[in-house]
């Protein structure tokens, strides 16, 4: 997902003023994925939301100390959100990988059994024991089951987490915090 362009950035203007503009856009991008991603089938949107969370987290990690105190809390919350979305994404990558792997094993076994049947009228089920991957299918099926169920568990946890953020006013409080300026006495060493 390409990041939305941030208008009005000025290299010679104060860091906090530029960072405020960037955070506003990145926060809006992140929050814009709801309610779409409440649908567990929206895998691509969920992946894009993870990228949006990552972008917001990085700008907050760097420039959070310029803003009001809630920016620091929001940095941690954004990281937690990114982690939750990352774990779901891992499942979304691993589920099809495991499916493809299972399919490869099935195909290889079918080819081997076809060859083993030679000129038989029909396939003898007893030949299944000779299939090269006969011992492998159960473990791969268990993995697929685990990954699918884990994805559902993690998705439920993500919805709960987002619900908490909404109830606690994550967006409004961060928007307020980035309008504040931290009272920093000394300029950094160059």
């Amino acid at each position: 997902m390409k990041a939305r362009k941030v208008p009005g950035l000025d290299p010679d203007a104060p860091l906090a003023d530029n960072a405020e503009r960037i955070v506003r856009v990145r926060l809006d991008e992140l929050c814009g994925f709801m309610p779409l991603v409440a649908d567990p089938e929206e895998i691509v949107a969920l992946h894009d939301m993870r990228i949006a969370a990552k972008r917001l987290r990085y700008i907050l990690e760097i420039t959070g100390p310029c803003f009001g105190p809630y920016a620091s809390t929001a940095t941690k919350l954004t990281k937690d959100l990114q982690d939750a979305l990352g774990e779901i994404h891992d499942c979304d990558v691993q589920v099809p990988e495991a499916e493809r792997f299972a399919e490869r094993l099935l195909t290889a076994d079918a080819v081997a059994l076809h060859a083993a049947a030679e000129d038989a009228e029909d396939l003898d089920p007893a030949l299944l024991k000779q299939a090269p991957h006969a011992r492998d299918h159960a473990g791969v099926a268990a993995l697929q089951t685990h990954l699918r169920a884990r994805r559902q568990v993690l998705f439920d946890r993500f919805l709960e987490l987002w619900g908490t953020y909404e109830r606690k006013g994550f967006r409004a409080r961060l928007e307020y915090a980035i309008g504040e300026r931290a009272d920093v006495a000394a300029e950094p060493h160059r």
Partner: protein
Amino acid sequence: MAKAADIDVTPREPYRRAGARIVRVRTRELFDHAEGVLDTGDIEGVHDMRVASRRLRAVLEIFAPCFPQSEFKGVLRDVKQLADALGERRDPDVHIDALRTFSRSLVAANRHGVARMIEDLEERQARGNELLAAELERMQQRGLHGRLLALADAADTDPEPEPDPEPEAEPAA
């Protein structure tokens, strides 16, 4: 995982000066992690370098308007390519680790298939390592380290003052 250095920032310092300072720190962190990154026996090395590459990419994007655009685009492209190569190595590392943990929870009879999948991923890991080795070589040939520092220096340089407007010609008497 190696923690990124905390970098002091102040609200009023110029955006481009903060950018220069932060890019220097994140560049140093990236190259500090390059040593031993091709060792598949130590998966933390590649993880640390990958995280450092992501952080560097993020600061380049955050401070993009502070850099000369012609140089910036090429540097960002190279950093992205390096991050992708690190990902090609890291992704199978993570997956293998997760599968080993999962396998321990299975009854013995069900472990064969997972072990087979781990073997498959180890082949991918080896290919990822070859790709990463080539990318590290390419990064050196293209002088990425020096180009990143040059970008930071450019952001730290005061802009050329606007030339005074030409005095208007005296009207002819």
